[in-house]
């Protein structure tokens, strides 16, 4: 075989190699992300039921309208998601932060405590839910048994009416390790000189925390907040496993009937693919809007070195 009629320059050859290396990911981007998302967008304007192509019709914005008019559960589930976020996020972030603060002190066995606190995050969702089913069970659960020591015959329905606090306990138990590891790493990154300098200037521990530690931690708090918001809004698996009989067509009790629960039920219980995708995009837009809103608040409370130099 003769040599190719042209020779690639070094630059061309490097470009070719670059695209060879990224080609699997690039193909995945086109066929596993861009194409399905485009199809999903189109689907949201149709009456597609997941099966019958011949009867598919373009219905314009009807699906989107439906979410704000006929289907009262759409807004209900969104309000419930907001409630869940408002309960879970502050509890989880505050506890992780306090634990990180304590561990950042000069304590022995830091490694041990860090491992112990991280361990629940390792547990897969299905096993996690079994643990909490036997703890939160109304009749024979450990939690009600414990409360019964002080108030005999307590039977709080943690898996139905009170599923929201129940779910929060689970989320805090599992999430504590992740939050604490991130906060602790950030705390350890605070230069000792800054804290020492403040101490030499006679600042009390509370003042050091308020004026040195906390401002320096705000970028990390911001990062954890954004992360927590986005995953809170996508909560689906835990309530589904815990309170809906671990069936994708099962309906959780109203207290934990969240946005993504409502979306997924459209697909897997009612075959409403058109309406389901419309709800999915609405939820996505809501997440984006809330994230942008939180980003906008950044300049009021998140410390950045650039700001400080400008003063």
């Amino acid at each position, binding site marked *: 075989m003769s040599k190719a009629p042209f020779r690639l320059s070094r630059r061309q050859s*490097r*470009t070719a*190699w*670059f695209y060879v*290396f*990224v080609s*699997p*990911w690039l*193909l*995945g*981007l086109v*066929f*596993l992300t861009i194409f*399905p*998302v485009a*199809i999903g967008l189109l*689907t949201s304007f149709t009456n597609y039921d*997941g099966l019958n192509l011949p009867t598919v019709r373009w219905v314009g914005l009807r699906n989107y309208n439906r979410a704000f008019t006929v289907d009262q559960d759409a807004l209900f589930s969104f309000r419930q998601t907001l409630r869940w976020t408002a309960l879970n996020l502050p509890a989880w972030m505050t506890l992780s932060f306090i*634990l990180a603060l*304590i561990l950042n002190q*000069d*304590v022995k066995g830091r490694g041990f405590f*860090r491992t*112990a606190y*991280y*361990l*629940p*995050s390792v*547990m*897969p*969702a*299905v*096993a996690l839910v*079994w*643990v909490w089913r*036997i*703890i939160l069970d109304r*009749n*024979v659960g*450990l939690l009600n*048994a414990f409360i*019964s020591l002080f108030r005999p015959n307590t039977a709080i329905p943690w898996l139905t009416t009170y599923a929201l606090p129940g779910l929060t306990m689970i989320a805090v*138990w599992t999430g*504590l*390790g*992740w939050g604490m*590891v*991130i906060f602790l*790493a950030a705390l350890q990154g605070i230069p000792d000189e800054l804290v020492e300098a403040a101490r030499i200037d006679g600042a009390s521990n509370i003042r050091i925390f308020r004026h040195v530690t906390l401002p320096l931690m705000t970028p990390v708090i911001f990062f954890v907040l954004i*992360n927590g918001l986005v995953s809170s*809004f*996508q909560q*689906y698996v835990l309530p589904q496993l815990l309170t809906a009989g*671990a069936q994708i067509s099962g309906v959780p009790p109203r207290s934990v009937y969240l946005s*993504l629960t409502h979306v*997924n039920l459209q*697909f897997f219980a009612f075959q409403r693919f058109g309406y389901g*995708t419309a709800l*999915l995009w609405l*939820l996505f837009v809501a997440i984006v809007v809330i994230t942008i809103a939180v980003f906008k608040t950044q300049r009021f409370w998140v410390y950045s070195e650039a700001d400080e130099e400008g003063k």
Partner: protein
Amino acid sequence: MDSTVSLKSTRRQTLSKKLRKVPAYTILTLVTVLISIPFIYLIVTSLKLDIEYQSWPIRFFPATPQWGNYAEVFHPRHRIFRYAGNTLFLALAQTGLSILTSSMGGYAFARFRDVPGRNRLFSIVIALLILPAMVTIIPQFIVFSRVGITNTYWPWILWGVGGSAFTIFLFRQFFLSFPKELEDAAEVDGCNPFRIYWQIFLPNTKPALATAFIFGFSAVWGDWFTPVIYLSHRNTTLPVVIASAFVNPQGQALVTVTLAASVIYTLPLILIFFLGQQHILKGVVTSGLKG
């Protein structure tokens, strides 16, 4: 870091200083106890009879430990080995493929900095890092069910080939720190870029490989949602089977046996966690990955 801390502590180790730490240790111990109780309760309850578990007032410990529950999990009727095998296959296939293609991507983004279009593509990787997973999972389901690959393992293979933005990012960070001379010397020796990546760069990123493997494997092993929507009961995975209670031949639920199965199902991940702890904690810190 640590040495300065211990120096400080020896200098100021007075009794009052020690006493001041009592509240800290109290809280730390209390939290450790609170965190361990669910684990302990799972294990002790997995050793009870079902009637024992369902009786009130509850007793924390079993009257006699029912080790038979663990034997029952492996009874041929429950086909645990088949489901475990399916899960293991999917987890290894997807993670293995994803590590291969994502490390190639990470290598390209780290070492081909002069190539036109590179920056734009990399900003897509960053955008995908933030994109909520739900945005792609359902639309993919619509497409895959139309193409007819539901009830096969193809979705997992395709996800593996497509790689993950997190893993690309992870490998890129690693490959960025390699010295330029390493590449130049290999190039002078006539190595093509693939050999440089495969024989010089990849073998030197063991921490990244470990981190990518642990997070990838745990994600597939623990995933309940995708096998439920894609697979039938015959070829499904362990989490789907364990999610609802095992039954005896009469169709009665065996709760404590299922608890034993959950313990067995969790063990591999606990084992991986203890083996790769430092990689996991570092991975969490550098990339914000969630376990």
